[in-house]
């Protein structure tokens, strides 16, 4: 599984990376702009990400806006569901508005921090990634 972790906080990044590296290659981006660029380059290389773990409150470009741009990029390159990346929003924001916006922008799952390893693994199973 090719995974992109988009997270500006070191400990949150390390948590996700340590769990997910058992299931394949993990790349990291520390802001929303970097994330969109990483997705674009991965699509162009013919090896798009299968999983993107995306924080919301990020520098440069929010996770919500990054997700919109990522879905638009996929569409431009003819990548549609279910072949597109599974996106799990990972955020400390647990209000209904943010959750609604994330699903409106076509995320696949929403996990609230702090992440428990078992919940992340359950979500990966739900999304048939492991």
């Amino acid at each position, binding site marked *: 599984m090719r995974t992109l972790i988009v997270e500006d*906080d*070191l*400990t*949150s990044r390390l*948590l996700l990376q340590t769990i997910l590296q058992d299931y394949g290659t993990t790349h990291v981006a520390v802001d929303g702009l970097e994330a969109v660029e990483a997705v674009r380059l991965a699509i162009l290389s013919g090896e798009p990400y299968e999983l993107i773990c995306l924080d919301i409150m990020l520098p440069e470009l929010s996770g919500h806006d990054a997700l919109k741009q990522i879905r638009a990029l996929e569409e431009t390159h003819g990548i549609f569901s279910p072949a597109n990346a599974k996106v799990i929003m990972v955020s*400390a924001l647990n209000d209904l508005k943010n959750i609604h916006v994330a699903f409106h922008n076509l995320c696949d799952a929403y996990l609230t921090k*702090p*992440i428990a*390893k*078992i919940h992340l693994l359950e979500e990966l199973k739900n999304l048939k990634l492991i």
Partner: protein
Amino acid sequence: MRDPDTSPAIFVPTQLLSRLMGDQAFAELLLDAFLEDTPKQLQRLAEQARQGQLMEVKRLAHSLKGAAGNVNAPRLQACAQVIEHAADSGNTVEVCAKLPELTGHFHELAHAIETFKRQRR
């Protein structure tokens, strides 16, 4: 003055280990990264507050709140949340007033983490 009966705990290592499915080495990896990174984040937060950059203060406080939650440090997490909300409300005075408290909570947390690590060895 803080009421010791109602203030959140400094550090709850049992919850951290439970979240990591009992993996002690994983917990220590996260704790070491947290101890290394957080002083830099506190410094950035103080700099942005001094410059009145409240949007950036809000984002950094939010990030610190997440990091504190990640290592199950409720007291630091709660203080970071107060600063995040104060920055969101444009309350520079409260942001600046809370920063020394935030640093103090980090120092007591660092001590608790080091004690926890020593006890596990």
